[in-house]
Structure formats: C-alpha cells, structure tokens
C-alpha cells in the first residue's frame, strides 16, 4: 500500500528562530492570511470571532486548514507558480488525440496538473517529501486515465476534477514526478537535445541549482570547429564544466526520449528499450554526480538522498509562503527550517506549519530598527488570480467561464497573466504588485460578482449568498445600514470599517441610489467592497 511511508513525526529539537525587526499582523488579519494561503478562501465570521476574542489561536486554524479539503488544490496553485507546468498548449493537441477541440484547455490543464497533484498528494497524506521523487504512483483524472497507459490504484476517477492515485502500466521505473508525462510534456526535449533540457529542469526544480544561469564563457573558436557538437561537451572546458554532470543525468532519461515530439503514442509511453541510447548519443554512462544510475528510478533515489534536495524543498516552500525569493539575510532562518524538516521526516505539512510561524510570514509592519534588507518583507500581499476567483465565488457564488475554461487559469481566452499570474512560458514570475491590468480585471470581476449576487439574493430571499433579504430593502439612512455594512466588511475584508470609512461608503451608496435605484446601490456597494484594497490584499 503506498501510504505506508507516512511520516513518523517525532517532536523536533526546539530551535530558536533568529529575531527579526518585524511586527506581526493582528490576529484576525493573520487568520485571513493563513486562510488565503492554505485554502485560497476567506475565514468565516465564526472563525474570525473565535480568533479575535482569543478563544482560539491562529495556530489551531493552521492545523485545521492543513487537514482541510482545500489544502491540496491551494498547494497545487503555489507549486504551479514555480514548476510552470500549467501552460495553455501542449505539443500533442486534442486533435491528434482524437478529442473535440473544445477539450484543449482541459487537456493542457490536466497534463500540467499531474506532477503538481502528485506532490500535493504527498503533502496532503503527510508522506515523506522524498516520495515526490521515488513514488511508483502518480495522480490522474478521468481524462488522463483515458489517454495514457495508466490504471487507478484504488478507484477510478469520476471526472476531470477527481484526481486519484494511479500507476503507469508501461514499465516506467518509480521516480515520482520525474516519471510523469505531465512533467516531460512541459519540459520536452528536442530529439537532438538528448534530454539535456530535462536534466537541467530537474536540477532547477529539485535542487534549486540552475545550470542555465551559470555564466559560461563560450569558446567560439573551438565550438565553431567541432562537428558534431557533442564533441564540444567533452572537449571544450567551458562546456565540460556543466555537461560533465548534466549529460549523465540526461542519459538516464532515454526511456522518455521521443523520436517525434508530436506523436501522441511516442510522447505518452515510456520506452524501456531506449534506456541504453543515452550511452550512444551522449557517450556517457547514466549517473548522478558520479554515482552510477541505470534509469530514472535509480537516479531519483540518489537525488532524494542528495542534501540539496531537502534544502531546495525548504527554499521553495519559504518562497511560496513568503511571496518572495529568499535572500542572504534569510540564510539563518532557512537553516533552522531545514534542520526541522529533516528531523520531522521531511513532512511538508510540518514544514509549512513552521514557515507560517516565521516572523517573515507573519509580518504586518516593520519595526523602527528594521534595516533596508527588510524592505522586501511582504507586510502585505496581493491575491493571485486563483485566490481572486475562489474568494469571490465563496462570497458571491460568481465564477467566470469562457471558451470551456476558467479564465483565471487560462491565457488563450482568459485573464491569468493580466491578473498577475504566470502562463509558464512567456510570463514566468507571478506579479507581486498591483498593476494596471490587474486593477482592470478586479474592476470587472467586482462588477460581475456584485451584479450576480444582488440578482441572486433578490430572487432568493430565503437562501441569500451574501446579502440578507432585509438589507436589500433599506437605504443608508436606515439605522441597520451600518451594521449591515460592517458585516459585509467582515465577510469580505475580515475586519470592520473605521467610522470614517463607513460614512464614506454610506455616502457612496446614497449617491448611487440617487443616480439609479436601491438595487443598483447595493450592487455598486458590493463591487466597491471587492475593488477596495482591503479585499484583494492580505
């Protein structure tokens, strides 16, 4: 049974985190932050009240959120920003697979999700993180089960959104994400690249060591004369410095090597009979930094024992939740986190819990003695496209669809990069500041959600999504208007309004009512609350 590897967590040695000149967020806003980061949604009024009154701690909610149904999908969203597998296009299209054109976004999304879902499952089941690179299983939905040589482990998938553990049946070795079609369709290799780009991707994603960022002094004289180029990788020093370790890794992946990148059968199946080709084309034995490794399974087992694997997992997790790249002054904190991670059996949930306890994560302000180095601390974050979509849906029931896809995770017809997300190819860094196009997306999202929810709640007074039936009848002069306004602020901002802000909102409501009618005033009020920075920042 695959879950036998579950982490045995013993209490770690208590280490002291380095002190930082950062003021933590107020408890209610911290609860909002952990809710958005762990579940992608907003806390309920009851949860807020329990934390604000001191009846419950935020840490208690962190534990609950880590065990919640939403954790896995939210964790996948964070992984997607760094793994860049969720692109709009695949080399193999739905037409080549004999599917309807309208399924292309679903295909691309499913393919890109496979490795992320595997990692999220490892985290969710609290297995050792090494399982992400050694597992003999993957995750699949109904589409992937139909297209690829996969069989479900326990039960079959009931649909596109139902991801279940599955195993490949084509003889591929156990190598976790490195044995998934999803990863290698994204990081494909031209026939004459001989898997080198894949080896470089593995190093970047799993060791945080990027061969491609090494400054290389190209010796043009030698390079121009060598034919074929494979000689250069052996004979030119500047080439050898990378290729001496890169090529042996690439040589282990010839079971995934396709003669034709665009042939669905070639690209979908593992080819055990090609494993030996690395020796021929790359003129090297498959190996992990000098340790022989015949196939991806053996190689990934070595990788999982490499100390850089754990430190990279810590660095990437910190980056995901701190919403910034770790810097030099974070080294001490990362070192403490890494020691805890190793002592806690490489449990991702335990690591996340610890990252969310760091001053960097909980910072709401800088202290007076903060150095300029602290300026990069995210005392405030902006919602990602996924968070924007999930929170507006949570509060209003409104979620866009266009051309058979969710516009917040698609760029061909959607708004993902306009709203600050990554498309995996042209835009590879999530935007962390409020931009012009994001502002426009939020404006239209707010207007759409407000129109939708007011229409709905007017038509369904007994089952309102956001607005109680009696609220819709009153104007800003009514004594119950401000309490209604404050409840809306709590629902959408997780905090109440200052009296001055409440007066401004009331005046705005009146102004709209005078220019139009009461229903429009409620619609514009909800839209304004969503457009307010207190909604989309956290």
């Amino acid at each position, binding site marked *: 049974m695959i879950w036998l590897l579950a982490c045995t967590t013993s209490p770690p040695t208590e280490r002291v985190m380095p002190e930082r000149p950062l003021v933590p967020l107020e408890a209610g806003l911290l609860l909002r932050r952990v809710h958005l980061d762990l579940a992608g949604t907003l806390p309920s009024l009851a949860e807020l009240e329990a934390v604000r009154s001191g009846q419950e701690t935020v840490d208690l909610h962190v534990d609950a959120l880590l065990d919640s149904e939403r954790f896995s999908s939210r964790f996948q969203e964070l992984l997607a920003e760094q793994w860049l597998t969720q692109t709009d296009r695949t080399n193999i299209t739905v037409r080549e697979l004999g599917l309807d054109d309208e399924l292309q976004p679903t295909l691309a999304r499913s393919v890109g999700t496979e490795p992320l879902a595997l990692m999220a499952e490892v985290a969710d089941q609290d297995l050792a993180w090494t399982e992400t690179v050694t597992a003999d299983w993957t995750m699949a939905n109904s589409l992937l089960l139909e297209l690829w040589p996969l069989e479900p482990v326990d039960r079959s998938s009931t649909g596109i959104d139902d991801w279940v553990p599955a195993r490949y049946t084509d003889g591929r070795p156990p190598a976790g994400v490195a044995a998934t079609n999803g990863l290698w369709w994204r990081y494909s290799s031209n026939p004459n690249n001989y898997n080198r780009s894949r080896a470089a991707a593995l190093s970047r994603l799993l060791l945080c060591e990027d061969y491609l960022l090494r400054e290389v002094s*190209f010796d*043009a004289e030698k390079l121009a004369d060598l034919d074929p180029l494979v000689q250069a990788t052996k004979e030119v020093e500047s080439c050898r410095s990378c290729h001496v370790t890169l090529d042996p890794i690439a040589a282990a992946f010839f079971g995934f090597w396709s003669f034709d990148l665009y042939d669905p059968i070639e690209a979908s199946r593992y080819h055990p009979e090609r494993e030996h080709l690395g020796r021929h084309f790359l003129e090297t034995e498959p190996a992990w930094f000098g340790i022989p490794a015949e196939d991806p399974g053996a190689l990934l087992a070595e990788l999982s024992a490499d100390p850089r694997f754990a430190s990279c997992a810590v660095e990437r997790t910190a980056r995901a939740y701190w919403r910034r790249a770790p810097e030099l002054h974070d080294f001490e904190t990362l070192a403490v986190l890494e020691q805890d991670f190793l002592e806690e059996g490489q449990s991702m949930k335990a690591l996340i819990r610890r990252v969310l306890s760091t001053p960097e994560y909980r910072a709401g*302000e*800088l202290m007076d003695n903060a150095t300029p180095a602290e300026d990069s601390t995210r005392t405030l974050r902006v919602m990602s496209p996924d968070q924007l979509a999930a929170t507006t849906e949570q509060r209003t029931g409104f979620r866009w669809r266009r051309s058979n896809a969710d516009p917040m995770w698609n760029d061909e017809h*959607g708004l993902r990069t306009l709203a600050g997300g990554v498309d995996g190819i042209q835009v*590879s860094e999530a935007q962390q500041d409020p*931009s012009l196009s994001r502002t426009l997306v939020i404006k239209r999202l707010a207007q759409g959600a407000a129109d939708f929810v007011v229409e709905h709640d007017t038509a369904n007074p007994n089952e309102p999504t956001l607005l109680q039936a009696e609220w819709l009848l009153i104007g800003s002069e009514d004594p119950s208007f401000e309490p209604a306004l404050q409840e809306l602020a709590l629902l959408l901002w997780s905090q109440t309004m200052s009296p001055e802000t409440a007066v401004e909102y009331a005046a705005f409501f009146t102004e709209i009512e005078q220019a139009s009618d009461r229903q429009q005033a409620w619609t514009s009020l909800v839209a*304004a609350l969503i457009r*307010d920075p207190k909604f989309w920042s956290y």
Partner: protein
Amino acid sequence: MRRRSFLGALGASLLLPLGGRSYALSGSASASGKNRFLFIHCTGGWDQFMVFNPRFDAGTIMRSEQESTAVAAQVNGLPFVDHPDRAQVRNFLEDFGDQAAFLHGMEVRSVAHDVCRRLLLTGSASPGSGDWGSRLSANSSVVAPMLVLSGPSYAGAYGTSVVRMGESGQLVDLVDGSWQSKAAPITQLPSETVQALEDQFALSRAAAFQATALQPNAPNGQATLYGQTTLNAQQRVGELSALAGLEPSSGRLLSETVEQVLDLFQADQAMCAAVEYLGAGGLGFDTHAGNDVQSIHFNSLFTELNTICQSLESRQDSTGASLMESTTVVVFSEMARHPKLNFRGGREHWTYTPAMLIGSGIAGGRNIGGYTDSMQGEKVDLESGDSDPGGEALDPRHLGATLMAIADQDPSQLGVPPISALLA
C-alpha cells in the same frame, strides 16, 4: 515605534552624471521631448548569416545550397547578405538604411531560449529584473507605458507600467466591458453615470489606502509601495478606454499590429510596445531542421519593417515632427544560430547575436562591432563602434544602456556604458 518608509525618490527628476553625460531621469532625447520604443522580438533565434553577417571569407560558416547565390553587399553603409530570394532586405536598407544601425556580437551567455530571452530583454538572469521597455517607461504617465501585444514580458519591479493585451485581445474586452457578455455567467454593467461614480469611489479608496500606508504606525515596507502603485493604477484604469479599439496581434500582419501601436504613440498614449514576430506561417526562427525557411521569414520581416518605417515617417506627433524622429525600433532575437549546418539542414543555437536599431536617437548607417573567424563577437570601441581588441565585449546590457541613454535616463545601474557610436 515603527519605521516610516518613503518612496519619494521615485519619479524625481534627478540629474546623475555618467561618463561625462547627464541624464534626466524623467527627460527624453527626441525633438518632441518624448521618445517611444517599439520592440520586435523574432522568437526562436534568428540566422545571422542570412542578413546581418556577410562573412563569406570565414571557413567556419556552412551555407545550404539555397544560400549558394547569396553575396556580400553594402547599402547605406550597412554590410549585409544579399540574396535574390530576400529582395526586401535590400529594399529596406535602400529606403531606411540611413536611419538604421546594426549591432553585432552581443553575447547572451546561454543557449537556452528562456534564459536568453530573459538575458537579452533585461540584461540579467535575476528573476526580479524588468525588461527594457518596463524600465524605460517606469516613470511615464501615459495611458499604457509599456504595452505588451505579444511575446515575452518581464515586468520585474516595474509591473505597474506594464499593460498586457492578452492573446485574444482580452484587455480590450475588459476595457469596453464586452467581457461581461463574452464570459459566463453574463452580467450587466451599470450605466455610464454609475460606473463613473464607482470609479471615482474606487480612486478615493486607493488614495485612502496610500495615505494609510504612509502614516506612522501603519503597515509599511511593501505596503507603502502597494499604496503608491494601487493609487497609480486606479488613477489610470479609466484612461485605458483609449485602448478600446485595439485588435490582438494573433493572425495579423506585423505591420497591421504595429499600426495600432503607432496610433497610440501618435496620441501620446503609449511609450513602449512589444510585439512578437514568428515569421511566415508563424513557424518561428528556431530552425534546428530546415533552416532555409528563415529566408522566407527575413524577406517577410523586412517587408513588414519597410511598411512600419514608411508609416513612422508619414505620421506626425503632437509637435508636428515625424514619428520616426521620436520612435526607436529595436529588432532582435534571443540568440543566433551555429555557423555549421547539422544533418537535418538546421542550425543549433549560438550565443553571439546581432540586433538592429532604427529611428530616433540612432546614428544611421552604422555597423557596430563584428565577428571573429570563429563567429565570436569582437570587442568594440564604444566611441567609434569599431572592432578593437582593447575595447569592450558586448552583452545585452550595452543595448539596454544605449536605449536608456536615448531616453535620457541614467544607465549607470546596468554597470556598463551605452554604445556612444550608436547614438545620433
């Protein structure tokens, strides 16, 4: 006690000396006082031996049979590869070579597409670096400081200046509100009057957010920046209506897409714009096999460039000057291709690549740098532009510094000086 953090220096018009020249941070070099930049990215890695590098004497270069009729030529001071199948290259150089310059041998220090793109467009491998267009337009107050119609984009720390069009023109759908009826569930937009009131209120809330972020005992650090950028974005979101007529670049000729950009340049509504060019049939320039297709790409590219430059010359900006006098066109690819042909008739990647600059601020007819017999970029005397073993090895930062100098911005942060010989 909490620390207050001010970003007052942002946008200030400081004069900083560099190499004996002063750069006004918010100034400009063109006659009209506003320089625009159009970036045309030929995606995939172009073959420098088809146009820019006429080194027929170097034995390292292999050419296909199709290229056997290519000859070295020179027009308007620019040496190039002339070929009967690429007559449009000669036509362009005859018409506009006196306003164009070739920059040779920039080393992008990688042969991986994504890394090369980042390096060529930002000068740095660091993920947080912004591309040249984002940097140049960071302090611009026009509607769309950096308009990305297609192709790669690195906003870095300059995200507030970047406006993305979206692959199928989604930006326009959002601007004119048609998005609400194209996406499901369909929703109704309020009346123009109500929308104006909503926008006004959103602006006041952004201003309040900014004011809070600047107060003592308030969230600071990143929040201060967010306060400022939020207000800035909210102030300008209404002005985006100026972009309502834009059409997406997908499926259109390069010159048709650029015409829209020039409309915006002319109306002072954009400062920089980026467009991707994928060649004939959208096949791209990454020709590991069948490299000869690049001949068709280049002929089409120069046809398009001719049309674009004619339009630039025929249009006038708000001062009455030709748009060509205030627009710098930068044509580039993330890398070049190997001198040898492989067994598929293709070429592998090569790290030394040329770029072409046209128009405002550019010393026309200049051919900067060159290549050794091994096709390595030669070191260059930045003042004369001549190859000089005692000069500097060129990399993308030199291109960026030169563009910043054209915009009268301080390039010292890039750590290299501009190429003076390129500057008019």
